[in-house]
């Protein structure tokens, strides 16, 4: 089944220019897709269209075979959760447990079921010990994990991360990415990761590059990062490992182009041990 399907979708914020232009794309259930693009490329708009926070001007969107529209909003949002950028602005309650419960309360579950959902969600993001903690005292990464738990409590089949790591330090980013990767692999949750950190896109099985409201590149992260000139054109910075590779090659070390540090290390070792250099 397709998790999300866009058909000729256009959206404009009403300033004459389209934030999303004639977009066609789909995500399969269980996939991990990264959406890349610089500011204003339309990637956040894409996220908001997926669960009906925004309504397209033209075209149709289906989520798990359900057309996104006014009448289906509730069911769509149960299936597709969004984690936003600023952890402070998406927490409703002051206590971790209460905040995680918010979504589950909204969909009218019984107390016992809500309790079970909180247990599950906090366990899934590794925050069980913080159940009764004050949200304001947590670190950025922890707050964002609580936000993920809050979405998980709704029992979604798909999770959209709209630049959810942009405000975190490297450690917080790593925490979030580990959680997301695990949710995708172990719980089978479809992930749409919107980011401008190229390193994060490496975890995805497929990556999409957006520019000016259109999809301009599509493929596995490896395929995309090989086209360096094109990425530069869309104002995207290469992941660090790609930059290291290209600098080494420019400097005369014939390493294979790779996105894996282990492989790069072996490549370098091979080159160094060759008597010709």
């Amino acid at each position, binding site marked *: 089944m397709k998790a999300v399907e866009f058909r000729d979708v256009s959206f404009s914020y009403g300033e004459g220019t389209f934030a999303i232009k004639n977009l066609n794309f789909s995500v399969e259930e269980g996939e991990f897709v990264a959406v890349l693009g610089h500011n204003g490329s339309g990637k956040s708009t894409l996220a908001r269209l997926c669960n009906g926070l925004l309504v397209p001007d033209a075209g149709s969107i289906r989520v798990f075979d359900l057309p996104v529209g006014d009448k289906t909003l509730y069911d769509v*949002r149960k299936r597709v959760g969004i984690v936003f950028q600023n952890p402070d602005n*998406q927490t409703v309650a002051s206590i971790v447990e*209460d905040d995680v419960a918010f979504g589950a309360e909204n969909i009218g579950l019984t107390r016992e079921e809500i309790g079970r959902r909180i247990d599950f969600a906090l366990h899934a993001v590794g925050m069980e010990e913080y159940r009764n903690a004050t949200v304001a005292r947590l670190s950025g990464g922890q707050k964002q994990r609580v936000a993920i738990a809050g979405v998980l409590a709704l029992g979604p089949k798909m999770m959209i991360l709209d630049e959810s790591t942009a405000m975190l330090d490297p450690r917080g980013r790593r925490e979030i990415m580990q959680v997301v990767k695990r949710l995708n692999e172990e719980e089978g949750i479809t992930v749409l990761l919107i980011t401008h950190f190229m390193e994060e896109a490496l975890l995805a099985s497929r990556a999409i590059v957006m520019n000016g409201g259109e999809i301009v590149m599509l493929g596995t992260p490896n395929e995309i990062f090989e086209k360096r000139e094109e990425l530069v054109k869309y104002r995207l910075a290469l992941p660090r490992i790609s930059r290291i590779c290209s600098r080494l090659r420019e400097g005369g070390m014939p390493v294979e182009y790779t996105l894996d540090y282990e492989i790069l290390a072996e490549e370098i070792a091979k080159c160094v041990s060759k008597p010709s250099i």
Partner: protein
Amino acid sequence: MLKDVSFGQYYPVDSFVHRLDPRLKIVFLIAYIVALFVASNFYGLAVCAAVLLFAIICSHVPFGKVFRAVKGVLFLVIFTAVLNIFFYNGDAVYWNAPAVLWEWHFLRVTQAGIVFSVFLVIRLVLLVTCSSMLTYTTTPVSLTDGIESLLTPLKWIRFPVHELALIMSIALRFIPILMDETERIMNAQKARGAMLDSGGLGKRIKAVIPVIMPLLLSALRRADELGDAMDARCYMGGKTRTKYKKLTFTWRDLIVFLLLAAMIAGVVVLRIYLGAPL
């Protein structure tokens, strides 16, 4: 400086007081405030103070924390007290001939005025302490659950009880965030050479505008984002909503309820039998 404002913050420990039904704690606070003003002499106020002291000890909230809440309104309390010393001359019922201690034009200090001011200080301090104890020992969510439950009868006249409760809990949740933000903006303005702490009153008030405006804008932006986040988590108003935390009235609440009744009875009895300076 802004870190000192601790009103409206929860102190997370587990205690007898923390476990009380929030509805009871709200009713307690209201009854306590009434009792403070029913108490007409030092004995009555002493009873109130003793009950509150007992509550603080039972709540495991450190005294330093409690004192910080009082410190926040200390200026207001002193200001009111000073005004009263000079302008209050005593009630004719209790003070037939107010003993004038000092007089200058329209300013007059009487024995009644001093006693009244002291009473006022005690009352205000106890009032603030008691209300901050409510927020220290009750999470915003259970506080608003309590208010929502107490206001339920108003649903009959279609008063939006749930919405009101939600607005309050969100306001409480954002207090620490907006505090931090204010401090950040103030530092940013100071770094640009703004004189926030010096100059006359007029100058200082003007200097606050560049702090208030960004704060207001940011609060609006936050509200917008929070609204989206709530929508995304299936918020559709209170109609279909269930509650995870159920409020239950237990033996603890019964004990406190009896204590409260005893305190009010005590205050009333003391007022009737001992009469009062005020």
